């Protein structure tokens, strides 16, 4: 039975008929290969994704193959486009946080942070953010950086057959997400960082919980080095794959681990500090192999650097116990500190008692700020931060109203996917998966 047909069931009505179409149903690969050999087709077009598990979400790759060699590859994106930027134009500035946190869902805290920093710059209150709020932001960002790098290393390992790396990475990540849940009520999509500060302070046992997380990570992070760093199969699969040297990364505007894997120590936390990163002691990790293996090593080492920052945060949190976590300006600050109830996030009982039983003005104020929000002066800003994937930035325009006029997110994954053809063409099909994983794109952020 032949698998080649000229009738393409998936073509649009206006598409031209073109060559033979192979229908792969699984388990019939040998037949297809034999068919193709018999027909003498020189190349075959393979559609990978958008539901392929190794495309990190719903990425579609269209490959033109000559045997197992990739002649050309084109990424197709947009399958997870949810109109976040457009939706935010119809919500208040604070409500916007719940949208942005869902973009790059592996690193939600960074989306919130970059958006809030941009809104605060528009408001001109950057210097008024309480110290403790900034420390908590840094703490959450660095823990999230570890979690995101764990996913990158874990799924990247899984895709080349190192399944154990995935299982242990998700075990560690879950410890971090448990901590996020204890702090914000949610594992992911936290909406924890708000314009003006953070939603609530750490719970009473927050620091001790944090210490157990740090101890756990310190105990288990070395396992990745043991499993991978010197593993000949791991090195063989990753080194000299997805090579991008400094000139190429600059040309494609790459940032984050792919840029630092060329030996260039560019980290916005150091070069253009925000949230007081200049006061923390940590190193920028670089590697000089230009390839996927270098990017893996950078991610692993960055987990340790983040852990260093987390420990400094613990000291500072102990020194700032009881200080505010939200800006003092009552016209901007969310009226209540939320509290994490048994069922997750919830209102503070004291606040409810105050507005419902004691002060009508407080109730009016609560109602006004929650329904109406606050006005942000006219203007535009561009705020960039170092997300685990690279430069994550936010371009916000305000028309002086209570809603954003335009918000645009510059997601590092969106930018990095442009480099896929350069990284993969001329290589083997199996290396496409490795090269892609080394960029760590998250399609929620790419498509927004």
């Amino acid at each position: 039975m032949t698998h080649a047909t000229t009738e393409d069931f998936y073509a649009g009505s206006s598409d031209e008929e073109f060559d033979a179409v192979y229908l792969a149903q699984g388990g019939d690969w040998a037949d297809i290969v034999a068919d193709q050999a018999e027909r003498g087709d020189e190349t075959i077009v393979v559609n990978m994704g958008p539901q392929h598990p190794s495309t990190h979400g719903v990425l579609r790759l269209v490959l033109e193959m000559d045997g197992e060699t990739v002649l050309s590859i084109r990424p197709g994106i947009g399958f997870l486009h949810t109109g976040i930027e457009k939706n935010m134009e119809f919500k208040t500035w604070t409500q916007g946080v719940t949208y942005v946190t869902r973009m790059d869902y592996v690193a939600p805290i960074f989306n919130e942070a970059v958006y809030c920093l941009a809104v605060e710059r528009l408001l001109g209150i950057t210097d008024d953010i309480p110290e403790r709020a900034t420390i908590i932001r840094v703490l959450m960002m660095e823990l999230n950086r570890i979690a995101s790098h764990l996913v990158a290393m874990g799924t990247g390992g899984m895709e080349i057959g190192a399944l154990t790396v995935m299982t242990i990475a998700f075990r560690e990540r879950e410890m971090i997400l448990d901590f996020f849940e204890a702090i914000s009520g949610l594992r992911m999509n936290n909406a924890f960082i708000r314009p003006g500060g953070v939603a609530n302070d750490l719970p009473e046992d927050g620091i001790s919980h944090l210490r157990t997380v740090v101890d756990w990570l310190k105990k288990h992070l070395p396992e990745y080095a043991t499993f991978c760093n010197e593993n000949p199969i791991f090195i063989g699969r990753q080194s000299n794959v997805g090579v991008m040297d400094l000139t190429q990364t600059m040309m494609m505007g790459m940032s984050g681990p792919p840029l630092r894997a060329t030996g260039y120590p560019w980290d916005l936390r150091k070069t253009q500090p925000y949230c007081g990163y200049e006061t923390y002691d940590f190193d920028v990790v670089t590697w000089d192999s230009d390839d996927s293996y270098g990017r893996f090593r950078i991610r692993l080492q960055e987990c340790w650097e983040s852990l260093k920052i987390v420990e400094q945060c613990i000291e500072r949190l102990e020194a700032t116990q009881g200080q505010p976590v939200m800006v003092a300006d009552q016209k901007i600050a969310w009226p209540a500190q939320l509290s994490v109830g048994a069922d997750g996030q919830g209102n503070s009982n004291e606040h409810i008692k105050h507005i419902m039983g004691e002060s009508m003005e407080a109730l009016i104020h609560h109602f006004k700020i929650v329904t109406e929000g606050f006005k942000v002066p006219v203007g535009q800003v561009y705020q960039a931060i170092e997300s685990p994937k690279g430069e994550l930035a936010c371009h916000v325009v305000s028309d002086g109203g209570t809603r954003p006029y335009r918000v645009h997110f510059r997601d590092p994954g969106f930018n990095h996917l442009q480099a896929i053809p350069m990284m993969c063409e001329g290589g083997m099909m199996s290396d496409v998966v490795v090269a892609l994983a080394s960029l760590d794109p998250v399609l929620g952020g790419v498509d927004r």
Partner: protein
Amino acid sequence: MSDELTPEENLPSTSGMPAQQPVFASKAGMWSRGSGDTSGYGGLQRELTMPGQSEPPFDEPADAIHSRALEVLPEELGGARVLFDRGELTIYVPREHLTAVAKTFRDDPHLRFEVCVSVSGVHYPQEKGEELHSVYHLLSYTHNRRVRLEVSCPDEDPHIPSIVATYPMADYHERETWDMFGIVFDGHPSLTRILMPDDWKGHPQRKDYPLGGVDVEYKGAHVPAPDNRRTYS
């Protein structure tokens, strides 16, 4: 007092400002749409404009960029509007000069903006004749600084030259801006839709494109779709 000011003199100086800054948004009352404005401020009229033009000196990096840009591009940027706001320098580049400006900004050793990190569109339907804006954020690794270039084009002629030849990384960003705003980037190698389906009609992030959504009725109460709810903006 002898040196009493006339009312005109008492106002902030407008010298150096462009003749008329387009009205960014006109707002009336405390809220609009939905139910009537019962706030008592229904007669309130506000006209909001973007910050206009600023004159040097700005801060040190912005001055360096601005003065060097004028030095190497006197014809292209001679009359261009420049804005220094919230620590960020914006240069409003006439669209016919964008290609030359981008190339010089990349290649001149004192400017050396190696990367165009982001391109984003903004739609200002109020600004007649320059409704569509394309905003470029450039980053210099060498000098560790950023600049914003803003280019506008009218709705009837939505064409802006592509900078992909200078900044290859702007490829996807320009495609997204075309997809969302309908700005045609002339000279782009393959200006196709990127986030929306290929056969989509319209450009969703323009202000005249509705958000969509349906009204919801729950236990007799009626909640309008998000873009039909009362707005306080």
